[in-house]
């Protein structure tokens, strides 16, 4: 057997060019690489937040209503939007483009519901007096330690940056899905699947933002209300 002939049967021929070694198209691979880099962006932000939190007195101001109720319903919306998206991709793989479009439109609906609820929730906090570099007066009074150390004013900065960047991802996702839903009959199945990858990633990021930002900042004893 000649060397060339042996190279043909060698499994590494996958990497010799002219084939798709990962069995995915280059656009899908591109989306995966984007997701990897974007995960690092969010990890860096969340680790920065954890750093600030561990090195400062940190306020825990979120009441059950509105903050936790709103953020839980938002989580439910985002999880459900992922389910409708996966139904859409599944329909598209069977060639049922009309049904795929309906499911993608349902996904956009849940995404927009998430944004609206989140903006209402932001509005509550801004109304209370929270700003990127200032805490409301009564928060400072409540969360100052017995040693007289005031809570860090960076609470607002981390909160608005992380949830804002996430909301921006959801917003761009709804536009992206809108374009996909409009052109679904012209697009290949894999392109629909790629838009699904992006949408599930947005959902995945929220699975870390929700516990770290909301659950860990619950005002357990109702200290603010007192």
């Amino acid at each position: 057997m000649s060397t060339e002939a042996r190279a043909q049967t060698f499994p590494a021929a996958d990497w010799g060019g002219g084939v798709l070694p990962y069995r995915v198209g280059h656009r899908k691979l591109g989306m995966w690489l984007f997701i990897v880099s974007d995960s690092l962006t969010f990890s860096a932000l969340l680790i920065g937040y954890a750093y600030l939190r561990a090195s400062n007195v940190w306020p825990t101001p979120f009441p059950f209503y509105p903050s936790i109720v709103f953020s839980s319903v938002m989580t439910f919306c985002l999880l459900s939007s992922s389910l409708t998206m996966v139904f859409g991709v599944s329909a598209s793989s069977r060639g049922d483009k009309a049904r795929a479009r309906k499911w993608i439109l349902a996904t956009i609906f849940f995404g927009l519901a998430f944004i609206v609820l989140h903006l209402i929730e932001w509005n509550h906090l801004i109304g209370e007096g929270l700003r990127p570099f200032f805490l409301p007066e009564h928060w400072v009074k409540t969360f100052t330690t017995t040693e007289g150390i005031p809570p860090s004013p960076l609470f607002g900065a981390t909160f608005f940056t992380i949830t804002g960047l996430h909301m921006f991802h959801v917003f761009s996702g709804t536009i992206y899905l809108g374009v996909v839903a409009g052109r679904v009959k012209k697009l290949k199945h894999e392109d629909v699947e790629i838009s699904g990858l992006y949408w599930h990633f947005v959902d995945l990021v929220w699975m870390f933002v929700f516990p770290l930002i909301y659950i860990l900042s619950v005002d357990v004893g109702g200290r603010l209300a007192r």
Partner: protein
Amino acid sequence: MSTHVEEHFAGSNKLFTSIWAWLVGLTLIEIFLAYRPMPIHYMLTILMGLSIIKAALIVAYFMHLKFERLSLILTIVPVLVICICLLLMFFPDSFRSSGLRYKFKEPEPIAPKSVE
């Protein structure tokens, strides 16, 4: 040339619905835990554990990575895990800066001088 890409999308709607139910259930556990008083490092560990399980479910089933080729999984996942662990390298420094804090004390109020 085999540039044909598989159009088959593995997984039934029933499977995806059960994954969704798991995700909702784990979220409810997280919300329940929020009102259990416990030291913050236990809380953080449990919450991050649950979040990693949820993330794995989303990536494996919804993002379909479980059904992709092993070479793609090995290209994407380990690099991400290693990079995030490397980012965490700075975290212990937060304990140092926490210890450096100036312990602010209200100055003793000056006693009013008695008028003689």
